[in-house]
Structure formats: C-alpha cells, structure tokens
C-alpha cells in the first residue's frame, strides 16, 4: 500500500488533462502558436489562455507575444523545467501503473 502513495505526489499542475495535453503537444517541438494549440487541444480561447497562464506562472511554459504583420501572435514553448516536470510525471504514473497491474 505504501508503494502506491507515490501517486499523491503527482504534479497536480500537469495532472490536469488539458494542461497535460498542452505540455505533451509542446514536447516534440521548439515552439507552437496559440492557434495550433487551440486546434490540437480543442479548447476555447479563454480556457486555453487560462491554462497557459497557469503553466507560465509555474515556469513550465514560456509565452512570447509578438506580431505577424499587424496581427498579434502568441508563441509558446516548453521550458527546461516544464520538460523535466513532464518526464517526472510520466515516470511516476508509469511506476504507479506497474505496481497496480
């Protein structure tokens, strides 16, 4: 039973499904814009914005607001801390599943 307690140590910020999806999408790329993230996650603009803000506050995602012509462009990239957090989360989850299998 004690072995299973590790699951309570899961990073809750990443554990939330929408944020987990955002972080997973950003893993294999250098950066992606807001439109791409919105289409891939299926979230509304407001919802995606809120999740990105939380990830940015935690230092997991870096957000740059630039312009493409006259249109604002939001570029998101996963930070080193974000990458480490996702790797750790996946490992913890895998350990938990191995123990409960």
């Amino acid at each position, binding site marked *: 039973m004690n072995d299973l307690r590790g699951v309570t140590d899961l990073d809750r910020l990443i554990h939330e499904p929408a944020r987990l999806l955002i972080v997973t999408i950003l893993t294999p790329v250098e950066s992606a*814009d807001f439109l791409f993230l919105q289409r891939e996650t299926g979230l509304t603009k407001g919802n995606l914005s809120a999740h990105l803000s939380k990830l940015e506050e935690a230092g997991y995602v870096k957000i740059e607001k630039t312009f493409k012509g006259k249109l604002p462009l939001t570029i998101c990239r996963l930070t080193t801390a974000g990458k480490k957090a996702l790797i750790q989360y*996946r490992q913890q989850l895998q350990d938990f599943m191995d123990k409960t299998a």
Partner: protein
Amino acid sequence: MQSNFMEVEQRVKRYWFKDGLGELVGGGMILLIGFYFAGQEWLPEGSMGRTLLQSSLALLIIGGALATRWLVNVMKARLTYPRTGYVEYQAGAKNTSSRRLLTGGIAMSVSALLVVFGRFFGSFNWLPGFTGLVFGVTFILLRARANGVSRFYVLGTFCIILGMALSFTSLPMGYSLGLFYGLTGIVSMFSGGITLLRYLRENPLPIETDNE
C-alpha cells in the same frame, strides 16, 4: 498510457506533412533532376551544353535543396500557418555538424562503390533499381513509419517498383534515370497537390484571424 503520449507527439510531428507542400515542392525538384539526366543523354557527347550540364549537378542538388526549403517555408507561411497554426520543429540533437560530415562521407563512399561496381560488372543498368530502392526505403522508413503518414508507403512502393522495372529496360542510362526521377517527381507532386487541395478544403481561413 505511454502510447497515448507517443500518439500525441507523433500527431504533432505529422503536422508538417498535413498540407502536402513538402511533396509538391520537393516533387518539382525531383522532376528537375529527371530533366537533368535526360538532357545529359539527349545532348551530343562532347558538346558545350553537355559539359555544362555535367558540371552543374552539385549546384542543382544544393541549390535545389535550399530553394525547396525556402519555397516550402514561404508557402506554409501563406497557406498553412494562418489556417491551422504555426509550429517550429526542433533541429534535433542528432543534427550536429559531425553527423552531417558523416552523412556526406557515407554518401561519397556509396557513390564511389557504385562506380567501382559498375566498372566491375561492365554495366550501370541496375542503377535505377538501386536508386528506387534508396528512395523507397527512405519514404517508407523515414516518412511513413517514423511519422505515421500512410501515403508515403504508396510513394515508397511506387519508387521501388519503378526503379526495378526501369533496370530491366534497355534504355540508355540517362533516359532510364531521367524517367525514374521524372515520374517520381510527377507522382510526388500529384500526391502533394491532392493533399494540399484536401487540406485547403477542410481548413478554410478563420474569419477572425487574430491569433489570441
């Protein structure tokens, strides 16, 4: 669970091929190489044109690769990014200068081996078959299998069959290679064109183009 993560990551990697622009522009480049080989065969031996053409292969390949990359990026910026978003891919830790040197070294060694092989057997008729095999394996392993883009299985198989078939014809080498590159380029452009049309139909420009 791990497979779910991998599926999402693969879907993101697959996004590069979603619009077919790479095949469309790359196919045009392959078609040009086809014209190069056919032109070399067609021009009389010892003529100025043939000599010029023979010395321009490296320029055609390097210049063509750079032009293809530039054109794909320009077209993606105009057609793809406003519709489905912008993604910048990682250069990859594997893409180091030593690795590029190694790739160049292997390519040169293989070319030298091919020449030795040809001289030994007294014929280069098998060259289209070998080229088809290289193209086919590249399409199938590096595009279809690694990125999960199934249309590259068809393109890869087409290259292998076409290369093998041309190896059994009695066409002069230049025409045989010209046909291989030309037909591969046309099929690639056709595949890319169909993919692009489908992509544009399925992804109209958002009315509100403001990105967040």
